[in-house]
């Protein structure tokens, strides 16, 4: 028998053990009433993140509107009027 087999034999015996009885209903309900264990959400980090995202969105929107309303396609600047001059 090696250590693992001994362990498995111990587990087989341990499974027959009766765990101690508990009576937690009153205490658990008392804690629930007191609000203990309620998942808490921390507002401040979420608010900061939301504010930063909003600022970034406004900047992007402003740039997008500016580009959209530009009188000409900005890419036209890449094609100088060389051809016209040649004619």
């Amino acid at each position, binding site marked *: *028998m*090696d*250590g*693992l087999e*001994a*362990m*498995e*034999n*111990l*587990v087989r*015996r*341990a*499974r*027959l*053990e*009766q*765990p*101690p*009885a*508990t*009576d*937690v*209903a*009153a*205490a*658990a*309900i008392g*804690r*629930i*009433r007191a609000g*203990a*264990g*309620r*998942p808490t959400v921390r507002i401040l980090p979420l608010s900061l993140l939301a504010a930063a995202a909003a600022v970034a969105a406004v900047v992007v929107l402003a740039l997008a509107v500016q580009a959209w309303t530009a009188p000409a396609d900005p890419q036209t600047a890449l094609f100088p009027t060389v051809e016209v001059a040649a004619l």
Partner: protein
Amino acid sequence: MPAAQRRFLGKAIQLAAGVLAMYNASTVDETDRQDIAASLGGDEAAFARLIRRYEPAVAALAWRFTRDGAAHEELVQDVFVEVYFSLDGYRGDAPLEHWLRRIATRVGYRFWKRRSREARQAPLADLDPPAAPGETDPAAAGAAVHALLSHLAPPERLVLTLMYFDDCSVNEIAKSMGWTRAMVKMRAYRARRRLKAIAQREHLLERLGWTG
């Protein structure tokens, strides 16, 4: 009827029986359903009934995580407090006990992680029942297993505890803890290897009088 059709029909009947069995197994008990609905409506008495109904199962599972009486009682309380605040997430697609066991396992695992930061390992000194393997006192055997497993890291310890005590499969552990199957297999392998080394280092067989 040709043999192929008979085989097909037999398979179809087997499949239907399996689906029906799964459906029956996952049906939530009507009393539970009523108590859950009432608890969600704020009825404390209904939640107390739920606690009393499932407390033995949760307490038995929590006993795998700690053998300290006060910590055990607190752990069982923690489970039911968490159950209360998660009750609206219970979809009823599995028996309530399965869902409770999953929560209890996670609460117990968190407890181990907290304790492992405090580096608490149960002493192996009380491994003294020199009895034949089949005659060891269950409580002494439980204490010995607890002490040995406490030398493993929480993830490895959890995998072996669930496999040894609850006959959980790799799939069940993976689903319960949100781990991948490969991760569970690797942790089980490492846990067994470490456990073997610990048993050797601590002279487990000699202490138990099981040598020779």
